[in-house]
């Protein structure tokens, strides 16, 4: 595709439910990032995938958060037992390894009620 695609664009869920957020990176990009942007806050790093290397999970805020990247392409961020503080915009980005320039998707706005 032409850019990074994220789905859904908006998600409203009840507290305690699990959610899955999807990211389709730009074809050929080996690096994929997940960030979280809360209201009035900067971008909080969550997780980073680079090729076949072990992902950098150092930004995941709790063990309720997990992510996988299948076949080096599509990635899914899963939040289990959602809490109200999980409400935020979740941004995905991808980059070619040798440029390090990251291209961002439009984000998924998650609201936990």
């Amino acid at each position, binding site marked *: 595709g032409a850019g*990074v695609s994220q789905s859904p664009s908006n998600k409203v869920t009840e507290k305690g439910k699990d959610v899955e957020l999807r990211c389709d990176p730009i074809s050929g990009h*080996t*690096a994929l*990032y997940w*960030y979280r942007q809360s209201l009035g*806050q*900067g*971008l909080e*790093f969550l997780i*980073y995938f*680079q*090729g076949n*290397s072990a992902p*950098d999970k150092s930004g995941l805020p709790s063990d309720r958060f997990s992510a996988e990247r299948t076949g080096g392409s599509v990635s899914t961020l899963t939040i289990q037992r959602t809490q109200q503080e999980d409400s935020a915009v979740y*941004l995905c*980005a991808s*980059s070619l*390894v*040798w*440029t*390090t*320039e*990251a*291209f*961002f*998707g*439009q*984000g998924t706005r998650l609201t936990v009620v």
Partner: protein
Amino acid sequence: AQSVTQLDSQVPVFEEAPVELRCNYSSSVSVYLFWYVQYPNQGLQLLLKYLSGSTLVKGINGFEAEFNKSQTSFHLRKPSVHISDTAEYFCAVSDREGETSGSRLTFGEGTQLTVNP
């Protein structure tokens, strides 16, 4: 580890005035530097980047930034702003040591630029 500090959370200016958005970083290794812009309800868009070479970098929409290694700064400037420049601006840094394996971007807290008529 690296960190980014954007010194101003809010910058209000009048249309056609010059603007400077300040960014300082700290890192134990050489870095790449970026400025991204986020318009309301949209994702982030790259404005400009410094990878190597000339320390003055020109980007889209008339913006430019200057890398100052001694001051560890990468301030963003525009000589004359338009109302359409109203947006949030993020400074970011990535670790050059990760050049062959990729490295994560670390962002500042963002600066809200508001251009008033």
